[in-house]
């Protein structure tokens, strides 16, 4: 057995609460819980769709439950926070060059927001104008 007794800096499980940057990091990671749960809710809806019209309408009925509406409101905020952080990180993840220079972060981030707005309008418009029919 070693006689060495090195100092190990203690690290409590709530380490991220001490620093705002770390808190926001954990908040960002936490948004994934809502993203995952929403995937499960969509899978549930898809299963209902396969079963038939009665099961589909039953699923729609569950979605009208105030608990589900409340969940989806929180999930929407969480998902939007994820989107904001994702767009802010985009220029770090994709290295776009113009000549020898890396292009600045701003046009890349702005481009993402423009695509986000277009995508949202297209999806909403598709459902609103009965595009699914």
């Amino acid at each position, binding site marked *: 057995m070693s006689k060495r007794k090195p100092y190990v800096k203690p*690290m*409590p*499980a709530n380490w*991220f609460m001490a620093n705002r940057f770390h808190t926001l990091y*954990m908040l960002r*990671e*936490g948004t*994934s*819980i809502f*993203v*995952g749960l*929403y*995937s*499960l*809710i*969509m*899978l549930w*809806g*898809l*299963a209902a*769709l*396969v079963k038939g*019209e009665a099961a*589909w*309408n039953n699923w*729609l009925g569950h*979605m*009208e439950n105030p608990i*589900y*509406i409340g*969940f*989806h*409101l929180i*999930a*929407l905020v969480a*998902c*939007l926070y*994820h*989107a904001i952080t*994702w*767009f802010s990180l985009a220029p770090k*993840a994709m290295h776009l060059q113009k000549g020898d220079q890396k292009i600045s972060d701003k046009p890349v981030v702005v481009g*993402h927001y423009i*695509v*986000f707005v277009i*995508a*949202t309008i297209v*999806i*909403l418009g598709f*459902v*609103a104008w*009965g595009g*699914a*029919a």
Partner: protein
Amino acid sequence: MSKSGKTYHRADEPIFWGLFGAGGVVAAFATPALILITGILVPLGVLQLDYASVNAFASNWLGKIILLAVIAFPMWHACHRIFHAMHDLKIDTARGFFKLFWYGMAFVVSIAAGAYLIAI
């Protein structure tokens, strides 16, 4: 086996990170609108998702690909983040089990979604 006698294992992280990235893109661009529609506007009666329309959409091959993408990729994204957040929360017991658990869950959800879409 290499010349030095060591066994090198190819890391599986790029696969999971790729799925995480794809899920992050879908969750950022498409999921907010989808939550707004299925979770808020349809339940409040502002928009409709009637069976015939949704069934027609899911019967089309392009519709199937879109539905699989919006269900499966965000699940991989979420499971990857939750798995790594466990380490951040100092929960480091049974890493191998939890890796199998979280990525296994994303895998099962993907297969289930694919099977349902084929069934329509």
